[in-house]
């Protein structure tokens, strides 16, 4: 160890130096307090042995300065003094000394004290290093949480929580919330809202919000109902979440025109509806298990529909709201919430803000233990404005291009791929055919169905002439398709530019035996057979439909402007 001796008596120093050198320490010497402080800064000793009574600066003052300048380091100071008065010795400790020994001292005792303080010093150094590491980690952790928080905020903003009929408040217990609120308009002018509560809070819970939001937004945009969306989210979460993590959720669809609310509630507290002048309506009970708990085949996607009137207000909230406790452990409770929402709304302070203020008052500064989410939907179409409709990604008008697309699928590929969605996606990626999408879909769907069902699988449509046969036909189809070992389906789509718009030639060829296409009837009757409508549909949808080869190649021409 590197030891500093501060003593104005040279003989005292000599005795000490001899002893410490013998014990293998490095030693520096100072003859008074001020010299001691200077040497301390220069030599950075591991331990100081300090006299009290010295000229220029005494030991008390020097020790105080040394301790002050040690910073994070712990440098033990042992007072070695001729004073025996208890008050003087106590003063040593008061000025920052760590121990004392009165002269004449025992060398054995001094060695023991040096040894003991050296151990404390090592321990202190270890803790300081660990603290520094913890601090670095915490800073990194906080940085990462900030990033996650920013992502989380963006996800919420992606939807239409700013919808004029919605007010809401999300108060996370930590930076990241395990509660989520999502809202998005459907293509048919309805509004979808979702409130979710993941088990736990913080990062682990917030991570789950990403796939939930993604599924919710994309399926809403595609026109799926809330039951189907709940089922899809359930499936997705089941795949990715650990068993102990799940998500209670309430999904809601509001039809402003039809004055209807459809709800799927799995494990969230009762949704509350207030009708002005009448009070609370029947609550929206949870009828399902939270998301991610059930297998796909056990999942119940059934929803409940409630008639609402204009002016009705609906409230969804997480259990963090009613289970928030004050200092004496009392819960905020459903009654207090109901009292609040039964009061008429007074702008400009929204009811959500008012409830939150009431809750803050109730808790009286107690920190929240759970995330709190609260959302209000005002069932009044007058508030809605068309600007909040989903932004359309197809606002530009597309110019026709020349292109050719070819897809060949062998039996094995057909086991796992339904070529229809793939083709439609690719086709509309190349050429924006928004208004024609449906007709092109019809043509492709029917031609592909014929090529696969009759060409490759050899199914006979007459099977579909009875209700039982109809079901049987599709069961057979499913089975035969999985058993199919040989066969080829080739689809060619050629698009060429015309003066105005373009021409699409869709050719579907199968490796089957073909059929006698000359016998095809051209009309579509009102006869009530369950089949035989596909080809007439295609005929009516396109410019021309012709068969080639032995009937295994069908070519439809669709012209758009």
């Amino acid at each position: 160890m590197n030891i500093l001796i501060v003593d104005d008596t040279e003989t005292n120093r000599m005795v000490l130096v001899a002893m410490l050198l013998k014990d293998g320490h490095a030693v520096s010497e100072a003859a008074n307090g001020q010299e001691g402080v200077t040497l301390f800064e220069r030599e950075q000793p591991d331990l100081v042995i300090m006299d009290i009574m010295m000229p220029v600066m005494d030991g008390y003052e020097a020790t105080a300065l040394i301790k002050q300048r040690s910073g994070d380091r712990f440098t033990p100071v042992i007072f070695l003094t001729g004073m025996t008065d208890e008050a003087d010795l106590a003063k040593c400790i008061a000025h920052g000394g760590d121990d004392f020994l009165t002269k004449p001292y025992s060398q054995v005792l001094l060695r023991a004290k040096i040894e003991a303080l050296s151990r404390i010093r090592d321990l202190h150094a270890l803790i300081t290093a660990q603290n520094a590491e913890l601090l670095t980690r915490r800073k990194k952790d906080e940085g990462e949480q900030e990033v996650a928080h920013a992502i989380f905020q963006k996800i919420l903003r992606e939807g239409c929580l700013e919808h004029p009929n919605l007010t809401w408040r999300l108060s996370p217990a930590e930076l990241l919330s395990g509660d989520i609120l999502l809202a998005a308009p459907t293509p048919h002018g309805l509004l979808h809202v979702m409130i979710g509560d993941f088990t736990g809070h913080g990062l682990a819970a917030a991570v789950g919000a990403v796939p939930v939001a993604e599924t919710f937004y994309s399926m809403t945009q595609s026109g799926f109902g809330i039951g189907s969306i709940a089922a899809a989210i359930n499936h997705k979460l089941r795949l990715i979440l650990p068993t102990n993590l799940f998500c209670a959720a309430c999904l809601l669809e509001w039809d402003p025109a039809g004055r209807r609310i459809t709800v799927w509630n799995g494990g969230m507290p009762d949704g509350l509806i207030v009708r002005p002048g009448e009070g609370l309506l029947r609550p929206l009970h949870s009828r399902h298990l939270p998301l991610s708990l059930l297998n796909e085949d056990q999942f119940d996607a059934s929803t409940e529909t409630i008639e609402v009137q204009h002016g009705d207000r609906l409230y969804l909230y997480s259990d963090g709201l009613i289970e928030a406790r004050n200092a004496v452990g009392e819960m905020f409770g459903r009654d207090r919430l109901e009292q609040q929402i039964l009061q008429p709304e007074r702008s400009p302070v929204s009811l959500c803000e008012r409830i939150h203020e009431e809750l803050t008052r109730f808790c009286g500064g107690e920190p929240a233990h759970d995330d709190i989410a609260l959302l209000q939907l005002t069932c009044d179409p007058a508030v809605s404005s068309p600007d909040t409709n989903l932004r359309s990604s197809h606002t530009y008008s597309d110019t026709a291009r020349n292109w050719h697309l070819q897809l060949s699928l062998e039996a094995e590929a057909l086991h796992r791929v339904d070529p229809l969605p793939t083709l439609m996606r690719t086709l509309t990626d190349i050429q924006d055919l928004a208004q024609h999408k449906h007709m092109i879909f019809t043509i492709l769907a029917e031609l592909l169905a014929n090529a696969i069902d009759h060409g490759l699988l050899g199914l006979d449509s007459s099977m579909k002439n009875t209700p039982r046969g109809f079901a049987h036909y599709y069961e057979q189809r499913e089975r035969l398709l999985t058993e199919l070992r040989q066969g080829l389906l080739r689809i060619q789509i050629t698009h060429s530019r015309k003066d105005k718009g373009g021409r699409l030639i869709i050719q579907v060829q199968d490796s089957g035996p073909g059929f006698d296409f000359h016998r095809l009837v051209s009309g579509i009757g009102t006869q009530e057979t369950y089949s035989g409508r596909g080809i007439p549909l295609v005929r009516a949808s396109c410019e021309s439909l012709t068969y080639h080869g032995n009937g295994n190649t069908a070519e439809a021409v669709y012209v758009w402007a």
Partner: protein
Amino acid sequence: MLSSQLSSDGATLTITPDGRFDFKIHREFRDAYANADGARHYVINLGRTDYLDSSALGMLLLLREHAGGDHADIRILNCKPDVYTIFQIANFHRLFTLA
């Protein structure tokens, strides 16, 4: 995918297919009305149907058969224009109430 709902008096069954109404949901569609014994009125809500193929037409005819043929009370609601075109091509407006 589809969802179905029986009115509180059990007399009206509403079936709402999601997205594509095609042969993939033929079993679900049949189960929906086969499991609703007391239903006398049927509503097919196509508000969420983007596409419809010829097998869907067959399925609707099967429901018509099940619901009493010419005496069946089936209303097809909320058709989008494209879907409506298909029904017109198939002359379905003669067999069903399209609204």
